[in-house]
């Protein structure tokens, strides 16, 4: 971490102005089919940030020098922490409701297996991916999951490339995607919003943030309860998620991959 680059005043001033402008635009609701798409200020902030990114548009190097942008990666990890603290503060006051929902919160981790049921067949049968598909679809590709893959296959293996790809996509778009998806599914009114809040907890810090914020906007009356459930679920994910992905998800993915690859073309098999 290069302190001089990280404390560059232009970078932080740009962020402050971007955030204030985004907040000023506020939440926009777009009716879409049976549901509503929620556009949150964080979406505009991301888009404006990308537009000012000197790696995408060389001209922007005059506003924010390239090395500053290059070095700014660790800022995201740090900037999310105050938010996590704000988030935790919704759990404490709601502790009784959370304890009452305990079993649902713990078993809900198993829902992570939904990942491979949808994504793995698509990756192998439609996109004709090789063993990258295992790394890409066995989990939601957070850091503990990367550690497991790196331990078992190495990160330069096909499995490693698969998980790193999903990790990078998650870092770039995961937050936005979770916010859009959660808000939309909540507006369909099929599943209990508290269940959706728990499902938000499967993501990384910023995904959980955006996801539960979108839910809270969709159902403002249950705001505090929803935030508390999402936060509790995320905390449990850290405790149990690693074991479920190591002992259940990865073996099941391997097994399913072998079955699917046999049905796919032989050309795919030699790639793996």
């Amino acid at each position, binding site marked *: 971490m290069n*302190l001089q680059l990280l404390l560059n005043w232009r970078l932080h001033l740009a962020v402050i102005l971007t*955030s204030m402008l985004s907040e000023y635009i506020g939440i926009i609701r777009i009716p879409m089919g049976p549901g509503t798409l929620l556009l949150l200020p964080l979406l505009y902030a991301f888009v404006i940030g990308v537009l000012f990114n000197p790696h995408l548009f060389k001209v922007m190097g005059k506003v924010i020098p390239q090395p500053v942008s290059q070095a700014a990666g660790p800022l995201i990890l740090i900037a999310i922490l105050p938010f996590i603290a704000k988030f*935790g503060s919704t759990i404490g006051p709601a502790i009784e409701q959370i304890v009452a929902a305990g079993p649902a919160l713990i078993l809900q981790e198993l829902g992570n297996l939904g990942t491979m049921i949808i994504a793995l067949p698509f990756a192998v049968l439609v996109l004709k*991916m090789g063993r990258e598909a295992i790394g890409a679809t066995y989990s939601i590709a957070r850091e503990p999951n990367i550690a497991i893959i790196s331990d078992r296959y190495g990160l330069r293996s096909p499995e490693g490339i698969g998980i*790193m790809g999903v990790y990078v996509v998650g870092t*770039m778009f995961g937050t936005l995607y979770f916010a859009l998806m959660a808000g939309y599914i909540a507006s369909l009114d099929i599943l209990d919003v508290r269940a959706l809040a728990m*499902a938000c907890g499967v993501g990384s810090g910023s995904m959980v943030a955006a996801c539960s914020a979108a839910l809270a906007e969709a159902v403002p009356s249950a705001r505090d309860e929803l935030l508390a459930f999402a936060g509790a679920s995320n905390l449990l994910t850290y405790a149990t998620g690693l074991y479920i992905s190591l002992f259940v998800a990865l073996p099941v993915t391997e097994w399913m991959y072998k079955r699917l690859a046999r049905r796919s073309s032989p050309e795919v098999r030699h790639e793996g």
Partner: protein
Amino acid sequence: MKANETTVDHFDTDSLKELRPENQLPKTVLILAVVCVAAWFSNTVNGAPLLEALPGMLILYVMVVIGLVVGRLCPFYLPSVAWVSLISIIATLPSFPGSEWIVAQLAEVNFLAVVTPVLAYAGLALTGREFTMFRQTGWKLVLVALLVFTGTFVGSAIVAHLLL
């Protein structure tokens, strides 16, 4: 696959470890103060004016610092995110002394306003590596990644829905 390989190459567990905020405590604490200021300003639009939100922002700052220190001193590894949220939960439990005052101060800080700057940093911090990855073979992985997120979210929501 070649093109993809070069983009992922230098991404190894060591560099992930080095990025963990609790491993560079003095720098992190300083940078944390700067990003808190960004959140503090972001909060003025839909949250509260600077002075009213000051105690709340300071509480958040202190909670994060405590979380990072505990994470640093703890003999086993848990992500700093988990520690920070644990500290914050404990401090706001109804039985914790002064928790009512803490919760009241934090109410001045808008939930969404604190995330907005994070995404602005994220947009500004994307590097050539990520942009290149998407121009090349990345589209398959993007599609798969979005399915992974959808599958996990819907899967967990269905299990939770049935159990509630």
